[in-house]
């Protein structure tokens, strides 16, 4: 029964190895010590139970009891001595609760918390028991992989994006070790084992036949590790990185499903890029319009901005006009027409800010005065076609500086400045707004904070930081997409006492004639700030270079561009979104098409990336093609080499005795070489055309068979016979055939063969010549056989030096 006992120990070891992924959860290695102790004790209990020949249920029970005792010892409540009492279980329940709280309040890696350690030790101990029972009692070690996998699922669940690879490899090898041990034990029960050369295999050594299994195991693990890196499933894969480039706008997950866009500006997350789908076609008489807008999120939590259900009046009762005093600035009136495709189906209507009238809508659309959104609870935007009038408000910094602080009792202030406490944000806002007096200067300072100069970059996923809130993580890592920028700026504005919220909508899209085509890639989020006397003023903090169709305004210029002096824009009291004045913005009148490569930033990296990708793909394809053509090329080279007139070499004169005095002159040597080359070429050609070669055949017979088999007609038949005769004489006669048109004969034979062969054979002979492939294969086989031979000799030499062969054979 020593095999079973050993297997039990292996099961314990494999469990410990499989527990390796836990190391990425904990800060220190206390858990490992405790788990080692627990698993070791459980294994000891199992071995003891088996030595005493307990039945299976008693073995399981003894292990459970040992686990319980170990837990009591490691996590005492203080009232018992090793023997668990009811209070111990009460303590365990407390530890459980504590662990639950800890999982919510701590980020990975966690410090040594009693609750978490307790849960870990309990889990690993249970897995150890399960693995032991499955392996030793049930003899189903493959099933033991399931509890081991359960351990691995813990870091998978904890880490959102990627899980460390090394623990997986360690765990996989633990599992393989278990399988190998079980099978060795299984084979041993048959009795003595032999190697291929008839020698006994000792107990300690695996069968030489197991080498294949070991190799398979390693290959499997390597494939399991490498494959996910290559397969473009998750946007961390190599392929998806190669093929996905450039900018991503988008309002987070859910924008693809059911044509809805989730109105939640998350402070962390990841954008999954989907295919580009056209959503909206828009015509407007405004030269360069600002963002189309449909939703607002103004409920700030620690995770980001969420939206509230809009309430309001039917639009049939008319929309408020901002020019009546609710907003300041200069206004121009415009009219736009919108056509929505069937891909966008939501209850929020995309319109411009300050829309004063909508035509072409059925009944059932409402306007929320607070959020300034048009919504419907019953209808959807799907395939809507409508026109609307709007006024474009334009501001200058000078104008905006006149905005006063809103009274704290104002409902707008109350609603839009509520925010969770976060020390990082408080400190940051305090630092940025120090010395700023006006509302506008404060928000401008906050807005300018999100510049590439400060290290902010656009990325499709955020990076979490352990033990810090999402906003703090974003402010620290400075990577994210529009949602994070919009939400962070809004939060910071609220922190500074300025009402702020996040608006959702679309950037301008691609211009097609006088129409803007807006796709899901144009979905965007930005910040709106309430300035008294001006209403909601948009600020887009997302780096403009990465947002297709990004627009900047005079009061909030692109912070990443060489700044035109603010004074200049102050004096030029030009409307904000007016492109003619937005000298610093991406919207320049001379370059109206933001897709134009010369336009600032936004499309630059994208086109470069695209071309890089396509270049890579083309390059790979070309490489593949070139690799495929290598055999054909090799064949052509061989043929040309053989056809090449070999320069007459200095003949090696051999004195031959007897009457058979062979004539040796340069011409004869050359004639022989030519004949041999032609014959070799003929052999290869035959192989190419799948006519079998028989090494026991003489040239004469081969030539005759070639004529018969391939049904060669006059010219090729004569040519084949000539080649046979030439080779025959070159090999066996005193004087070789001279002056034979061997090259011509060869090409004739080849033509004849091509005529009688079918198309597939013909193409194969040119593109994948079997002769070259066979030579390579034979060469490979020879080389590997030689390698095996050398390896065998080395092993024999080493075996002589091995002390193991002196050991008595314990297997008998």
């Amino acid at each position: 029964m020593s095999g079973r006992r050993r297997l039990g120990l292996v099961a314990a070891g494999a469990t410990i190895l499989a527990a390796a992924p836990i190391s990425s959860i904990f800060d220190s290695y206390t858990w490992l010590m405790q788990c080692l102790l627990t698993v070791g004790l459980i294994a000891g209990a199992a071995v003891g139970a088996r030595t005493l020949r307990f039945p299976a249920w008693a073995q399981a029970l003894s292990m459970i009891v040992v686990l319980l005792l170990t837990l009591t010892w490691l996590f005492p409540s203080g009232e018992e001595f090793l023997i668990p009492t009811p209070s111990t279980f009460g303590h365990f329940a407390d530890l459980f609760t504590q662990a639950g709280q800890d999982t919510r309040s701590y980020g990975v890696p966690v410090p040594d918390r009693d609750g978490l350690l307790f849960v870990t030790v309990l889990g690993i101990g249970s897995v150890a028991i399960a693995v032991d029972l499955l392996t030793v009692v049930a003899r189903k070690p493959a099933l033991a992989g399931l509890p081991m996998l359960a351990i691995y699922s813990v870091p998978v669940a904890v880490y959102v994006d990627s899980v460390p690879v090394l623990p997986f490899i360690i765990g996989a090898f633990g599992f393989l070790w278990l399988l190998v041990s079980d099978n060795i034990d299984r084979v041993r029960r048959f009795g003595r084992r032999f190697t291929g050369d008839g020698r006994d295999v000792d107990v300690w050594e695996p069968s030489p036949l197991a080498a294949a299994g070991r190799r398979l195991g390693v290959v499997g693990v390597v494939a399991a590790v490498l494959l996910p890196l290559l397969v473009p499933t998750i946007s961390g894969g190599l392929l998806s990185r190669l093929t996905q480039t450039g900018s991503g706008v988008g309002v987070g997950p859910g924008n693809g499903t059911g044509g809805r866009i989730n109105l939640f500006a998350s402070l962390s997350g990841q954008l999954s890029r989907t295919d580009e789908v056209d959503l909206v076609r828009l015509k407007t008489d405004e030269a360069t319009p600002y963002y189309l807008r449909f939703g607002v999120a103004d409920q700030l939590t620690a995770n980001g901005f969420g939206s509230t259900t809009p309430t309001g009046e039917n639009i049939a009762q008319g929309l408020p006009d901002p020019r009546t005093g609710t907003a300041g600035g200069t206004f121009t009136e415009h009219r736009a027409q919108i056509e929505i495709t069937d891909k966008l189906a939501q209850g929020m209507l995309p319109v411009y800010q300050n829309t004063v009238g909508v035509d072409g809508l059925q009944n059932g659309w409402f306007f929320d005065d607070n959020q300034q959104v048009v919504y419907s609870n019953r209808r959807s935007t799907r395939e809507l076609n409508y026109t609307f009038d709007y006024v474009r408000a334009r501001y200058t910094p000078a104008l905006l500086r006149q905005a006063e602080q809103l009274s704290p009792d104002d409902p707008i202030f109350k609603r839009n400045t509520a925010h969770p406490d976060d020390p990082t944000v408080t400190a940051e806002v305090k630092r940025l707004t120090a010395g700023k007096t006006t509302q506008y200067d404060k928000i401008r300072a906050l807005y300018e904070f999100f510049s590439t100069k400060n290290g902010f970059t656009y990325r499709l996923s955020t990076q979490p930081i352990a033990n810090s809130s999402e906003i703090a993580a974003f402010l620290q890592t400075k990577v994210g997409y529009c949602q994070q920028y919009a939400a962070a700026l809004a939060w910071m504005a609220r922190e500074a006492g300025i009402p702020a919220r996040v608006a959702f909508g679309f950037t301008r899209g691609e211009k097609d004639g006088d129409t803007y085509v807006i796709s899901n890639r144009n979905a965007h989020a930005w910040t709106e700030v309430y300035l008294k006397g001006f209403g909601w003023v948009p600020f887009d903090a997302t780096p403009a270079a990465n947002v297709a169709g990004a627009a900047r305004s005079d009061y909030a210029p692109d912070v990443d561009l060489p700044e035109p002096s603010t004074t200049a824009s102050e004096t030029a009291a030009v409307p904000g979104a007016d492109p003619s004045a937005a000298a610093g913005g991406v919207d320049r009148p001379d370059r109206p098409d933001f897709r134009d490569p010369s336009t600032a930033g936004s499309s630059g990296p994208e086109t470069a990336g695209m071309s890089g990708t396509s270049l890579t793909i083309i390059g790979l394809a070309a490489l593949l093609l070139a690799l495929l053509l290598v055999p054909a090329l090799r064949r052509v080279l061989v043929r040309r080499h053989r056809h090449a007139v070999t320069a007459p070499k200095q003949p090696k004169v051999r004195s031959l005795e007897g009457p058979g005095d062979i004539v040796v002159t340069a011409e004869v040597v050359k004639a022989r070489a030519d004949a041999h080359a032609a014959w070799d070429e003929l052999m290869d050609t035959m192989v190419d055309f799948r006519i079998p070669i028989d090494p026991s055949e003489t040239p004469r017979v081969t030539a005759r068979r070639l004529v018969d088999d391939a049904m060669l007609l006059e010219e090729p038949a004569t040519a084949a016979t000539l080649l046979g005769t030439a080779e025959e004489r070159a090999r066996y006669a005193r004087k070789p055939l001279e002056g034979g048109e061997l090259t011509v004969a060869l090409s004739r034979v080849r033509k004849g063969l091509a005529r009688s062969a079918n198309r597939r054979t013909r193409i194969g002979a040119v593109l994948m010549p079997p002769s070259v492939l066979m030579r390579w294969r034979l060469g490979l086989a020879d080389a590997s056989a030689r390698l095996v031979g050398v390896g065998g000799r080395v092993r024999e030499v080493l075996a002589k030096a091995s002390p193991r062969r002196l050991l008595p054979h314990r297997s008998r």
Partner: protein
Amino acid sequence: MTTPTWDEPGGPLPSEEFRAATHAIMANIEQVIEGKGATVRLALAVLLAEGHLLIEDVPGVGKTKLAKALARSIDCSVRRIQFTPDLLPSDVTGVSVYNQETRDFEFKPGAVFANLVVGDEINRASPKTQSALLECMEERQVTVDGTTYELQAPFMVIATQNPIEMEGTYPLPEAQRDRFTARIAMGYPDPRAELAMLDGHDAHDPLNDLRSVTDAATVRRLIATARDVHAAEAVQQYAIALVTATREAPELRLGASPRSTLQLIRTAKAVAALEGRDYVLPDDLQALAVPVLAHRIIPTADAQLNRRTTDAIVSEIVHRLPLPHDRGRSPYDTRNGGPATNQYESRGR
């Protein structure tokens, strides 16, 4: 008797004369034996290879007729021995008899003292008599009462025998079989040749009309010409490989002797000369392997039980054996050699 010694066969003939002479002989024989061109050619080749011919077949297919026709075509001394169970060795080699007049023993030459000796139904004689032929066939001399007598050149024994399964036969010992260069079977004629035979032979035997077309001196020169044929190293290697293969074949108890290698090459040279070539081809060896090798080898009991004839074994070897390449191993030759095949053989302990 002033006969040239064996070592002075005369100069080789130019190829035209050679062809004319050999064609004349073959045409002459084919007047008698119809439709057996290959057999006739082989018989002539054996003559030119300075060998001896064993014709083995069932009775009545023309064995004796072929032997006699060949003998008659050449103007040389011909003796015929009809082997019977009571034939004595002295009848073959000769005997010393006491001459009353000279009061001395006088040697009376036996039947072997001729250029061509036709031994009819050789396996009907007792082994004692059969072995009397041994010395003269290989060494071309006869020793009687301590005196050695040289035989004439050319010297050729053409023996016929019935298959050993026939009644009243003593199988030839392998030592004697090994001395025959080639064993050929006549085989039944095809229907057309048999019809022609009926037309021509019913009234009288055309053998009686046969005139000699050449003489011993010319034959010696023919032999010299055949000796001059070139056998390339590759061909020689192939011959050795063939013979070695019979020695290593698991189905054979006794392989072919080194003498057979020599005779194989010699016969191949003769065949090549008859075909107008001055070099031997492996094709010649392949064609000659069965006639030259098959009668010398002894199959194992297993092979005999499996009804494997020696002919079949030799042809299988010919088909299996790769041609030696004077430029190394053929790249497509995967059946033999290669380091991969015997890697496990040396591993035993």
